C-alpha cells in the first residue's frame, strides 16, 4: 500500500475513535437545564486542558507563531459567532442562542481537528515505525473530544447515534490534513505552531464567550468551578501520557 494511503487509513481510525466519546451518554440520561450547565462545565475543562497542552507544545516550536495563530483563532470564532447570529438555526430541541452555541462547538472542534491532522501527518513523516503508536495515541486522545461534543449535543435531545456521528465528522479533517502534511512535511512543520495556536485560541474563546456564561446561569459557582478544574487536570494528565 502507498504510504499516503496508510496515513489516510490510520487517520480515519483516529477519526472513528472520536465517536466513542458518545458512548457514556447511552447510559446516562441528562436533559435538565442544570445538566446542560454541568455538561458545559465539563466541556470547558476538557477544552481548556486541551488548549493548555496545545500552547505548551506550540511554544516549543515558536512562541510568537503560536500566539499569532491563537489571535487568528479567536477572531475566527468571534466572526463565526456573529455570522451564525444572523440566521435562525435549530439543533435537536435547541433554537436561537442554544442552537448557535451547539453549532459553534462543532465548528470549533472541527477547526481544531485540522491542526491535529497536521500534527499526525508531520509525526508520520518522522518514520513509519512509530506509526501505530502515534495512531493509537491520537485515537485515544480523540475520545474526550468526542465526549466534549456529545456533552453539549446530548442535553439538547440529540440522539446518542447522532452525537457519535457529529463527533466523527468533527474529526474528519484529521485524515484529510494528515496526508498532505505527511507528503510535504517540511512545509507543514513550519505551519504547525500557527495551527496549534489557532486551535487553542478557538477553543479558549469558545469556553469564555459561550460555555462558561451559560454554565453560570444554571448551576452554582462551586459546582461549575469543581467540574472545570477537575476535568482540566484530567485532560492535561491524559494528554501527558499519550
Amino acid at each position, binding site marked *: 500500500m502507498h504510504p499516503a494511503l496508510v496515513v489516510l487509513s490510520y487517520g480515519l481510525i483516529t477519526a472513528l475513535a472520536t465517536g466513542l466519546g458518545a458512548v457514556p451518554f447511552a447510559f446516562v440520561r441528562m436533559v435538565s437545564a442544570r445538566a446542560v450547565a454541568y455538561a458545559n462545565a465539563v466541556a470547558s475543562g476538557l477544552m481548556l486542558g486541551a488548549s493548555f497542552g496545545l*500552547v505548551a507544545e506550540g511554544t516549543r516550536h515558536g512562541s510568537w507563531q503560536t500566539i499569532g495563530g491563537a489571535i487568528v483563532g479567536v477572531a475566527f470564532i468571534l466572526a463565526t459567532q456573529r455570522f451564525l447570529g444572523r440566521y435562525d438555526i435549530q439543533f435537536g430541541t435547541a433554537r436561537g442562542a442554544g442552537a448557535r452555541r451547539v453549532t459553534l462547538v462543532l465548528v470549533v472542534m472541527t477547526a481544531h481537528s485540522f491542526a491535529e491532522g497536521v500534527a499526525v501527518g508531520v509525526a508520520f513523516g518522522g518514520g513509519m515505525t512509530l506509526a501505530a503508536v502515534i495512531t493509537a495515541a491520537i485515537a485515544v486522545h480523540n475520545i474526550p473530544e468526542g465526549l466534549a461534543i456529545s456533552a453539549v449535543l446530548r442535553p439538547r435531545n440529540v440522539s446518542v447515534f447522532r452525537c457519535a456521528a457529529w463527533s466523527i465528522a468533527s474529526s474528519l479533517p484529521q485524515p484529510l490534513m494528515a496526508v498532505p502534511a505527511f507528503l510535504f512535511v517540511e512545509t507543514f512543520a513550519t505551519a504547525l505552531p500557527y495551527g496549534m495556536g489557532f486551535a487553542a485560541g478557538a477553543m479558549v474563546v469558545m469556553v469564555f*464567550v459561550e460555555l*462558561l456564561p451559560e454554565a453560570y446561569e444554571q448551576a452554582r459557582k462551586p459546582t461549575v468551578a469543581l467540574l472545570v478544574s477537575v476535568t482540566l487536570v484530567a485532560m492535561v494528565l491524559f494528554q501527558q501520557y499519550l
Partner: protein
Amino acid sequence: MDPTLTVLLFSSVAAGSASLGALPLVLRERLPIAWIGWANAVAAGLMLGAAYALLVAGLDLMPVWGATGALLGIAFVYWTHAVSGTADLELNRLEETSPEYGYKVLLVNALHSAAEGIAIGVAMVESLSFGIFMALAIAVHNVPEGTVLCAILKSRGVRLADAAGLAVATNVSQVLLAVAAFAVLTAAPSAVTWVLGFGVGALVYLVVFELLPESYRQAGSTSIALVTIAAMGIVVLLSG
C-alpha cells in the same frame, strides 16, 4: 541577596501592589459597573496565565503526582469556601451593606491570596527568575483585584486609604505562604511536583469560582472573554 529575602521582597511587592487598586477610585467617586467586570477579567486572565506557567514547569516532572497535588489544591479551596460559608458569595454587591457581607468579602480575598503565596513560593524554588516572574504576574493581578475590593469597601463607607490598607492586609497571607513554601520546598525538593500541581488546581478553581462569574453580569461576555484571553496570552508569551 539571600534567596529567602528575595522571596520575601518580591512577595511583599505583590501584596503591596494591591493598594494601587485604589487609584481608579481616587479619580472617580463611583466606578462604572462594567469596569469592575473588566478588572475581574484582567485578574482572571493573569491568574490563568500563572496557572499555565506552573503547569508547564511541572509537566516534565511526575504528572501523576502533579495531578494529585492539583486535586488537593481544588479540594482545599472548595472546602475552605464551603466551611466558611462563602460558597455563594457575590463579589459585586455595591449596595449590600450588612456587616456579614463585608467580613465575608475580606475573608474570601484572604483565602484567595493564600493559594497565590504558595504559587510564588514554589515558582521561586524552580528558579529565582521564574519565581520573580510569578510574583510580578501576581502583583499585576492584585491591582484589579484591589480595585474590586476597594470599590466594595468604599461603597460601604470605608475611607479610601483604609480600603487600600485592607486590600494589602488581605494579601499578607501571600507573603507568609510564599516564604514558608519556599523554605519547606528548599528543604524537601521531592515535594515540588505536588505543590506545583496544588498551585495549578487552586488557581484554576479560583478563577472559575471567584473572578469570572460576576464579571459576566457586569460586562458583555465577548468583552470579558477578550480581556481574559489577552491577559492570559501576555503571561503565556512572557513565560515562554
